[in-house]
């Protein structure tokens, strides 16, 4: 039906695309909007009035701080664990050849492909089978399973682009393994690790499903929000916290995007 191939997309398609994007993002704006409403029990539109008092209320709620603190600690430690294990695993898979290498690569990636609920149930039954009490560390373990994948995926791609002769050249010039890692490997994979770490942090920070199965009495921030939704008291506090969560997870993801985009010319071979 089109008479000219060079014209832009038809108006109908443009509208459909716009509606699709609006459907994705408007609800987030609504969350922000209701952080400022004066009505605290229900979400009526438009809000009857606007106020900043919920920020102060949130600031003074100890349960928010507790949940936030727990989430930050869990995300930090899971990311740290993931950085170490993910880097080591990526180095092994990309630098050496050994029996079962492809299998290991698949097994490392599998946890992120599995539904979170499977990972959660599996970990929960494993913990109770081994009679490990639920604690801060069981949450960290649960989160580390998918954080490792993110770091590994970022690092393995970069490792493959660091030419093997660079490492040999470093050893040849007198650097031992540690110096070679510090002066040659780390500068070349550093941005990939940072990006992977940021993504891992963001993933861990808003994780609900695995946490539900691996946490004991503690609540991470997302769990706290879930609990908060069922009781209609000071509802906008939840919205204020949601805004903070969006910022805390969105900024690292944005950072990771820019870091991996610019990292392309860093790791080429010497040629």
């Amino acid at each position, binding site marked *: 039906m089109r008479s000219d191939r060079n014209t832009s997309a038809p108006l109908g398609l443009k509208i459909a695309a716009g509606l699709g994007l609006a459907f994705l993002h408007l609800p987030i704006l609504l969350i922000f909007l209701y952080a400022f409403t004066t009505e605290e029990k229900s979400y009526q539109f438009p809000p009857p009035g606007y106020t900043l008092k919920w920020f102060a209320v949130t600031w003074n709620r100890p349960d928010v701080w507790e949940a936030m603190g727990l989430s930050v600690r869990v995300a930090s430690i899971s990311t740290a664990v993931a950085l170490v294990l993910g880097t080591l695993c990526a180095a092994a898979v990309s630098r050496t050849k050994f029996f079962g290498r492809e299998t290991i690569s698949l097994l490392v990636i599998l946890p992120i492909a599995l539904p979170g609920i499977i990972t959660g149930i599996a970990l929960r039954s494993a913990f109770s089978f081994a009679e490990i009490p639920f604690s801060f560390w069981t949450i960290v373990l649960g989160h580390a399973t998918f954080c490792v994948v993110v770091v590994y995926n970022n690092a393995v791609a970069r490792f493959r682009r660091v*030419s093997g*002769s*660079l490492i*040999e*050249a*470093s*050893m*040849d*010039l*007198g*650097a*031992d393994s540690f*110096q070679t890692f510090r*002066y*040659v490997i780390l*500068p*070349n994979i550093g941005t990939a690790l940072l990006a992977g770490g940021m993504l891992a942090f963001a993933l861990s920070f808003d994780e609900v499903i695995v946490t539900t199965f691996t946490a004991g009495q503690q609540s991470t921030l997302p769990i706290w929000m879930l609990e908060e939704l069922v009781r209609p008291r000071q509802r906008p506090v939840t919205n204020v916290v949601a805004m903070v969560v969006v910022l805390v997870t969105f900024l690292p993801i944005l950072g990771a995007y820019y870091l991996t985009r610019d990292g392309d*010319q*860093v*790791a*080429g*071979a*010497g*040629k």
Partner: protein
Amino acid sequence: MTAVLFQQVSRHFGTVRAVDSVDLAIAEGEFFAMLGPSGSGKTTCLRLMAGFEQPTSGHIEIFGETAEGVPPYRRNVNTVFQDYALFPHLSILENVAYGLMVKGVGKAERLKAAEEALAMVKLPGYGARRPGQLSGGQRQRVALARALVNRPRVLLLDEPLGALDLKLREQMQEELKSLQKSLGITFVFVTHDQGEALSMADRIAVFSDGRIQQLGTPEEVYKKPKTRFVADFVGSSNVLPPDFVRTLGFGDSYASLRPEAITLGDGLGRKNFAGRVVATSFLGAANRVTVEAAGARIAAMTPASIAPPALGETVTLSFLPEDLHPMDGAR
């Protein structure tokens, strides 16, 4: 003194014998070439010297010290890599100073040494650039400076000129040679280019199938190839089959005869044979005339000043008996 010593050194990868019972002694200050086609074991030998590979069996010494089990970073040996392997995240000066940095030499001192090394390879003032901003020939020089700044006792070069174009390659050949003479360092280089090996090396080891086929000066290897492989690989020697060698009055073995040792016509004290001309080609300084004699194709170099014979013509060719070299090996 012996710089590098191999005693019955083998390196096997699974069932592949990359290096097979190699004996080798490279003298101090020597410019030594390891020549061979790809997969002949020459690069594995170089990597055994650098320490990137460990021998499956046998014994290696570098300046009298046992080398097996010693990691690359504890050997007083440096390598110029085939792909140069410059660190892309460091400047040229930092690249050259890298070896001194990891050894803990102070910053001012190592940067000064790096500047001097860059001047030595004729790249003064390039220190601030990145490897990506340099041409192939310049990167080659940086790789050389980065190795030499450590004052190694042996410098290993893996196909150092392979990636350069012809003119640059000839220029670098001369520079490498004069650099080696002035520094007095033992150079060991790997190449598949026989011209490069012949023009640069003091001695050549010709490799095939993990073994050294012949070890000698360029002249020996060129004029008196020991095996058919060497005769074929080093230049364009004629390999004469045993039947033909017998008809010429020599023993019953393969023999080599260089094209430039053969002339058109007969002369005093020369051996002659008749052949039918099957091809002629003009090479600038000479003509190559290929004849068929007793079932073998034999090439002769004749001066360009003499018009080559016509195709199909039967001509008499001759050579001095001492130019024909019987070779080892089964027929």
